[in-house]
């Protein structure tokens, strides 16, 4: 599921970003070029961080960026940006951010399976640091696929 939403073309590796706004912009742009969201959605993701605080930094070094379906989502999708240099989002527990996932949900259901799989990947030992240093999008997808497959196998 997550591997249907997060494709090679929607992964940007070792991006240089001066601040968190640029991270959101880059991650949003990857969804925009695939016509999954409107421009407005990128602004909404930034606004959400300003209004609700940087709790989008859900774990050490990981941001999960999103806004609401009505903020301009056309089709369910996900992108990933890994950063050349970690960026602070203002989250005292989990800064600095090394990798940022962005998604646009169309409702409160269709993305649940993908987020579940993403949770599995991010709970794996040292997953963030491993993903942060991978050089190729295909290798990141391969790494994620293996973790998801082994979790399914255990069930």
């Amino acid at each position, binding site marked *: 599921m997550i591997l249907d939403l997060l494709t090679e073309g929607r992964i940007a590796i070792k991006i240089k970003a001066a601040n968190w706004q640029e991270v959101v912009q880059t991650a949003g742009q990857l969804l925009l070029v695939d016509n999954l969201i409107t421009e407005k959605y990128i602004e909404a993701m930034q606004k959400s961080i300003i*209004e609700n*605080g940087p709790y989008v930094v859900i774990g050490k070094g990981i941001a999960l960026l999103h806004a609401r379906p009505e903020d301009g989502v056309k089709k369910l999708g996900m992108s990933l940006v890994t950063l050349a240099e970690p960026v602070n989002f203002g989250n005292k527990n989990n800064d600095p951010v090394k990798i940022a996932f962005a998604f646009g949900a169309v409702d409160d259901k269709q993305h649940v399976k993908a987020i579940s799989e993403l949770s599995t990947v991010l709970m794996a030992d040292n997953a963030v640091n491993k993903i942060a240093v991978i050089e190729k999008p295909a290798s990141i997808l391969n790494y994620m696929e293996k973790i998801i497959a082994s979790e399914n196998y255990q069930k």
Partner: protein
Amino acid sequence: MRILAVCGMGLGSSLVLKMNIEKVMDQEGIKGTVDVKDLSSIQGEKADFIFASEEIGKKIDHPAEVISVKNMTDRNEIKEKVLTAAAKLSK
């Protein structure tokens, strides 16, 4: 044990939190439900505990005890907090 996982929109971080709490409950054999809610829809919801990030936790006004989670992807932190919650409930 009835848990609410809460974030600003009920779409992202609360969903990750729910999944990871459920994984721990599953592994530890703890029975219960975890529902995802956004901040504006928790009033009147019955729950034993509410799990949320520290920032969101501070904004929650609800009779249930609020347990704040620093790192939602840290299996050990979530396990410790879920086990503590389950122990309180069984007293």
